[in-house]
């Protein structure tokens, strides 16, 4: 790859078109090709309300370094056609010096875009495609994008061959020819968006979504059983897990509803198999009663909630962080359990795997709060290391004792669990308040003992330093959680380039709240900016409930679907400093 001096570290590209135009396919190939070139990047898909045939956009960001979040504005917009241009204008604002490539045959450049004064280049994509036997305009668009970005043609061709090969050699051939035709157009243009070569050359990259990563984390953690009911935007976890579990000796059962799926995994886990389900807000709501059962009967389970816009059916295809409350406080009665949130797409793997480990170690339900912006993002990452967290349950080995007390009071609150089949371990798991043996009881001492035990086992566990990512040093701190971390990180990098240093405290372990660690991380802090993607400020309220925030606090929050971006965060900090 030879690069000019003006090459940049990050280029953001949107490819749009009406349904069937193939914008998403073009985007996928482009992203993979960048990966093959050793670059990093990510892609989100945006589609209209139609199930099929509506307009679609591939939103990419390509970087020479690992990427934390999507762009807030775009360098390049390739419009295969201009249907539903108003949606694009709102969702993918162009940079002032942005470039638009469009086909003059498919209508006028929409006012909203023309007015911004960006450069507009017209290319007859449809005509060019027609000149190629079996050619399609989205492949022309792909060539144009690659050309403008200066991507090595070999990477592109390799990916095209791999992705289209099952459609026949003539389709591959047509694709290659279109791409070449597209690239050929670029030399004639005035402006280029060349991208810098990757920081680390020659690394193997993975192309993965957050949902796939969560699935993989579960399997790596030792999960061999899953049950679930499809729901947007969590379905891909299930669709990935189903064949993956078959291949590893496990099984996924499609349940009739979420009441069933949660109880299926409780049953499987009671049987000794680490188990998982995945859902989104409406499904989590239906699972709440039985998450309480898992807490009371001390059966480890993992529930991955890929959050979407709420309340109720809300906006199924868009991201929000507003299931924090239900995840932490949703159960009736006092039912302490674990809530973990991945801080990036790659962290979906680690966090889910860790959640399996925590659930199994403490015989407790664990909820993983991912969201649409993580789950459905396609991201180029470094191949993730193997971490040592595995399902490891404290088991009753059988036979030795007079009476086996399933819910025995122990020093760490975790009681050895008998797995069905173990002689001498027979007991009845129960959601009723019970004695140590498991017998239903309404005695105040039993109730208090078991409530204490379940609180303590979770409160006193050693979570190591995974409870949060704490980065940098400053008396100005951004406190955030989950998917908001990416934008916060990027904002902090930007500010640092401006000479402003900001510390990051990004919570991975939401519940139990690590009060001591948290306050330690905030020692010496003067200002705290709390960041979250909710309407009511759920995270902020949660922090307030758990501790006295030891500094001046500002709070920046907003519901979905408009993600809070790095530049907005920078503005918050800059304004505060200059105030």
């Amino acid at each position, binding site marked *: 790859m030879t690069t000019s001096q003006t090459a940049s570290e990050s280029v953001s590209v949107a490819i749009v078109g009406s349904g069937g135009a193939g914008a998403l396919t073009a985007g996928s190939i482009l992203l993979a090709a960048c990966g093959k070139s050793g670059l990093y990047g990510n892609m989100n898909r945006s589609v209209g309300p139609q199930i099929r045939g509506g307009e679609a956009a591939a939103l990419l960001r390509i970087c020479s370094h690992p990427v934390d979040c999507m762009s807030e504005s775009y360098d390049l917009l390739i419009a295969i056609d201009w249907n539903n241009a108003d949606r694009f204008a709102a969702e993918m604002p162009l940079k002032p010096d942005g470039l638009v490539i469009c086909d003059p045959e498919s209508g006028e450049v929409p006012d909203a875009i023309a007015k911004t004064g960006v450069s507009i280049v017209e290319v007859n994509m449809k005509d060019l495609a027609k000149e190629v036997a079996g050619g399609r305009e989205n492949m022309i668009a792909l060539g144009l994008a690659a050309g403008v970005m200066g991507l090595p043609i070999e990477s592109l061709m390799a990916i095209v061959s791999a992705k289209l090969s099952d459609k026949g050699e003539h389709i591959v051939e047509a694709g290659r020819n279109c791409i070449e035709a597209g690239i050929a157009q670029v030399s004639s243009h005035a402006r280029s968006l060349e991208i810098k070569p990757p920081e680390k050359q020659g690394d193997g990259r993975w192309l993965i979504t957050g949902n796939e990563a969560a699935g993989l984390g579960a399997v790596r953690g030792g999960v061999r059983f899953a049950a679930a009911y499809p729901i947007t935007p969590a379905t891909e976890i299930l669709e990935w897990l189903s064949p993956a579990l078959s291949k590893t*000796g496990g099984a996924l059962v499609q349940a009739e509803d979420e009441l069933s799926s949660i*109880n299926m995994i*409780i049953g499987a886990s009671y049987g000794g198999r680490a188990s998982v389900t995945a859902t989104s807000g409406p499904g989590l709501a239906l699972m709440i009663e039985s998450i309480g059962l898992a807490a009371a009967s001390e059966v480890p389970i993992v529930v991955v909630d890929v959050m979407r816009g709420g309340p109720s059916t809300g906006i199924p295809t868009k991201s929000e962080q507003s299931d924090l409350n239900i995840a932490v406080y949703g159960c009736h009665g006092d039912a302490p359990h674990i809530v973990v949130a991945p801080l990036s797409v790659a962290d979906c793997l680690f966090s889910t795997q860790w959640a399996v480990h925590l659930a199994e170690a403490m015989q407790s339900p664990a909820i993983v709060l991912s969201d649409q912006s993580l789950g459905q993002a396609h991201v180029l990452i470094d191949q993730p290391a193997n971490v040592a967290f595995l399902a490891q349950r404290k088991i009753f080995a059988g036979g030795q004792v007079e009476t086996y007390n399933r819910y025995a009071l122990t020093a760490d609150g975790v009681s050895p669990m008998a797995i069905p089949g173990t002689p001498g371990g027979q007991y009845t798991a129960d959601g009723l308040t019970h004695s140590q043996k498991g017998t239903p009881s309404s005695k105040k001492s039993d109730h208090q003992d078991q409530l204490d035990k379940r609180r303590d086992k979770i409160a006193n566990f050693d979570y190591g330093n995974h409870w949060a990512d704490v980065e940098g040093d400053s008396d100005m701190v951004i406190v955030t959680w989950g998917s908001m971390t990416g934008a916060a990180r990027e904002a902090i990098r930007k500010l640092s380039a401006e000479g402003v240093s900001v510390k990051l405290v990004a919570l991975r372990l939401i519940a139990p709240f690590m009060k001591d660690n948290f306050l330690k991380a905030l020692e010496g802090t003067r200002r705290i900016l709390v960041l979250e993607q909710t309407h009511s400020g759920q995270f902020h309220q949660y922090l307030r409930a758990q501790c006295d925030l030891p500094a001046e606090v500002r709070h920046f929050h907003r519901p979905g679907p408009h993600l809070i971006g790095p530049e907005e965060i920078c503005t918050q900090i800059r304004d505060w400093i200059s105030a």
Partner: protein
Amino acid sequence: MNAPQTKPFKAGDYRSDLTPVWCPGCGDFHVLMSVTRALAELGTAPQDVAVISGIGCSSRIPAYTNCYGFHGVHGRSLALATGLKVARSDLTVMVMSGDGDGFSIGGNHFLHACRRNVDLTYIVMDNRVYGMTKGQPSPTTEPDWDSALSPGGTGLSPFHPLVIALASGANFVAREFSGDIKNSTRTIIEAIKHPGFSFVEILSPCVTFRPDEKEWKNTVHKASVDETDDPARAARRIMTDDGMNVGILYRGNRKPYKAHVSDRIDDMAALESEFAIPPASKT
């Protein structure tokens, strides 16, 4: 864990020492006897049997056995048992419920457990009332049964759980009376042995809220026709019977659920390779 037992078991080996909370005379005492006798006769060791239930008087049964048990939440026993059986196909999994737990709040899992046809034995102690919550009508209660919640009766016809089971895909359907321990035991044995989902409705009087049901011992009668393997025929018969004929009514050949979890742990590398993008060749 599933090695054949040499020492023969007695029914008492399947009973725990817990005293049931049931009212004296409750039919569920008899069901408990039939179940423990059936298990003893089958000879599966207590630790290889799991008894799963929901909430209700009837659902208290797991802790009265000496097997593994799960007294879950109201209405979800079949789902919990399905997960357990798929994860642990080596276990004998019994699901025990009541007409409220199983047919009212648990109705959807009933439909889908039948359809899925996992190798479970499902016993519903039908007393045509919610006993535990002190006497409300259930889906099998007669339309004119008077109660505080439905003064003068609900006016609703009871529905046909056995036909619903047949229409949904259950593989074995029977009805018994709790007081007839001999036949109940025999039918439970057959139900456990039959592959796929077996459903046994046991008429089990609630002497406290339905004292009229003490009469059942006089009204039940053996089904006048033999069992069939034709679900449509069985369905028609049951829809026209008086709800009081007992025996095995259907024994089918439907294919049991296939998926199960093994102890095999395969290499993850193949799984992960799909995410890898080889580094670009030097250009």
